[in-house]
């Protein structure tokens, strides 16, 4: 898949290409959202699609998250495959009634007669003072609702395929994109395999023997960096990128922990009732005898994230924090690692080109 592709192509481009392909190949696909026709084009992820496909396929909406989700359900149960977009996950909280009471239950509640092939793209903010109501990582909420699928891609190589799979899935899918993932470049050298992963399939990004790291979304990007750093010191970490939180690829994570005996889960959400807690629970149930040390979690705090540049560094972990945690779990001497190499970026931007969250 990656042969001949420019390394400059990003996660955001891949999302846009996926949408373009869906609109071109399937007349039942419709994009809806506030801003799909505007000049910023949802962080450029729908660039050109409104002019290319017109206002009947790419539908601009009022600022009515709850009703629009209901409209999406109405379309989905009458033959369409709507893709709804929210520029912040936090805005979508207004639509919980439609999501939880209707979309998630429709197929079950009506005796399996009518499914809801609805895809909801939610973009989570990060850094640059996104603050308490623009940076929430609530993926674990959605995994709690029977009937929903939750997809959280991390890498550019997965974005397009997972988006297309989500839209073609007959069920409602919550598709969460970290804003910082959008600028991730498609780098074929990073990966040993070019396989496409289906919904519900995790990927072992790097095989290792000493400890398993499980992560998803932007945390996988940071984890990969930490793992590559540790590898140069001979620390052999196995890194699993979940890609889908629900349905969870239990086999892949259990098999890994059975091999390494040690587990670190990275979760960008607050700690209590986090998705990381669910993974630790699963491992405790299914691989307890193989654990050599208590599973560990790196997560956000159970405190709303403030806006101030002066304090947000205490609220976000980075690749250095992940590497440090691995070093401590493995009982190694942190002084022997030049961890500052992983702390080269200002904490509230993904790269030096990032100068606005919008």
């Amino acid at each position: 898949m990656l042969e001949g592709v420019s390394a400059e192509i990003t996660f955001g481009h891949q999302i846009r290409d996926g949408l373009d392909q869906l609109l071109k190949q399937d007349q039942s696909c419709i994009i809806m959202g506030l801003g799909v026709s505007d000049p910023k084009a949802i962080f450029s992820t729908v660039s050109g699609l409104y002019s290319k496909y017109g206002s009947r396929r790419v539908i601009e909406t009022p600022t009515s998250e709850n009703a629009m989700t209901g409209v999406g359900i109405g379309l989905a149960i009458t033959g369409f495959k709507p893709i709804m977009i929210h520029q912040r996950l936090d805005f979508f909280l207004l639509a919980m009634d439609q999501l939880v009471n209707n979309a998630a239950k429709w197929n079950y509640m009506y005796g399996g007669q009518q499914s809801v092939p609805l895809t909801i793209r939610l973009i989570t903010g990060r850094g640059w003072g996104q603050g308490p109501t623009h940076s929430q990582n609530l993926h674990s909420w959605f995994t709690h609702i029977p009937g929903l699928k939750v997809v959280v891609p991390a890498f550019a190589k997965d974005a397009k395929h997972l988006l297309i799979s989500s839209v073609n899935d007959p069920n409602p899918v919550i598709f969460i994109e970290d804003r910082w993932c959008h600028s991730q470049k498609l780098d074929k050298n990073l990966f040993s395999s070019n396989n496409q992963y289906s919904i519900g399939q995790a990927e072992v990004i790097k095989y290792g023997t000493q400890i398993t790291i499980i992560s998803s979304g932007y945390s996988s990007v940071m984890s990969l960096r930490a793992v590559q750093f540790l590898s140069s010191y001979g620390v052999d970490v196995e890194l699993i990128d979940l890609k889908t939180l629900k349905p969870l690829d239990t086999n892949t994570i259990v098999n890994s922990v059975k091999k390494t005996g040690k587990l670190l889960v990275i979760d960008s959400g607050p700690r209590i009732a986090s998705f990381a807690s669910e993974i630790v629970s699963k491992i405790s149930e299914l691989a307890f005898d193989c654990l050599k040390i208590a599973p560990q979690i790196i997560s956000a705090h159970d405190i709303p994230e403030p806006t101030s540049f002066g304090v947000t560094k205490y609220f976000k972990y980075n690749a250095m924090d992940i590497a440090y945690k691995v070093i401590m779990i493995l009982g190694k001497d942190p002084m022997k690692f030049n961890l500052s190499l992983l702390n080269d970026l200002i904490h509230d931007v993904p790269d030096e080109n990032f100068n606005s969250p919008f």
Partner: protein
Amino acid sequence: MKTNFESVIKCFEIALKIRAVEEKIALEYPKGEIRCPVHLSIGQEFISAVVGINQDTKDTVVSTHRAHAHYLAKGGNLNQMIAEMYGKVTGCCKGRGGSMHLIDLSAGFLGSSAIVGSSIPIGVGAALSHKLKSSSSLSFVFFGDGAVEQGVFYESINFSAVHKLPIVFICENNFYSVYTNLNQRQPQSREIHKMVGAIGVKSLKIDSSNILNCIRETKEIVSYARSSSEPVFLEFETYRWLEHCGPNDDNDLEYRPKGELEKWKAKDWLINFEKVLLESESLGASQIVSMKERVDLEVELAFNQAKKDPFPTLDDAITDTYA
């Protein structure tokens, strides 16, 4: 517009059938075999009937927790509805939805929601679907005065107006949200249909005191929606005779002003309708009697069958979380 007595008679029969079904539910409910909440439409049947005679099979309907009348008027399968209330596997949702969640896709009845206001935007989505498919079908959306207080109601009306969707909103204003009177919930000087008109949707209150006028006016406005493919909003004033949820009279709770229930019961649409039909000689007394017998028999058979039908097994109940 000339009165078409064939559709008037059909309207009467639909209302009669709804009343018969609801009365039978009220009769059977105390036996404890229907073990789910039921919200009966007795006193409100005529709205479904009057709207129903203007619905084509391909039109779609979404409804509320008080859905029986809307479902039956759209041609929803009676046996499957009753079986659903009895929790039987033969029910329209295989016993998963109960009285508040009805569906009959072959009749164009898309579903009903137990959350006030929740089905309104889904009906709007169905209307958008009709429009995108360039179909001549209409989306009918039923709700009560309580739903008007939900944010999603405004959002839905607004979107329908912006996109000129082929949709008929029907507000059954029965003046109560559970036990709380409309005048405690909405400004007394503000009429629902006028507010909706101000949002930008053609809107009117249908006067139901004259049966034939009511039928005629409803037909005209639905025809307008169909020919213009634009949204319309109909407000009907009506009254729920029984308790909010359950089969009983609840006048002893004294949340209704003294004499209010009696006043509405005296205006019983079915009795007046029968008089109109007899006076106009559209139907003879014996024809009405045989119509009632036919309806009663159909209802009786549906209940007998539902009681005999099996419950779902555990295996039946754990499929379909995902398609």
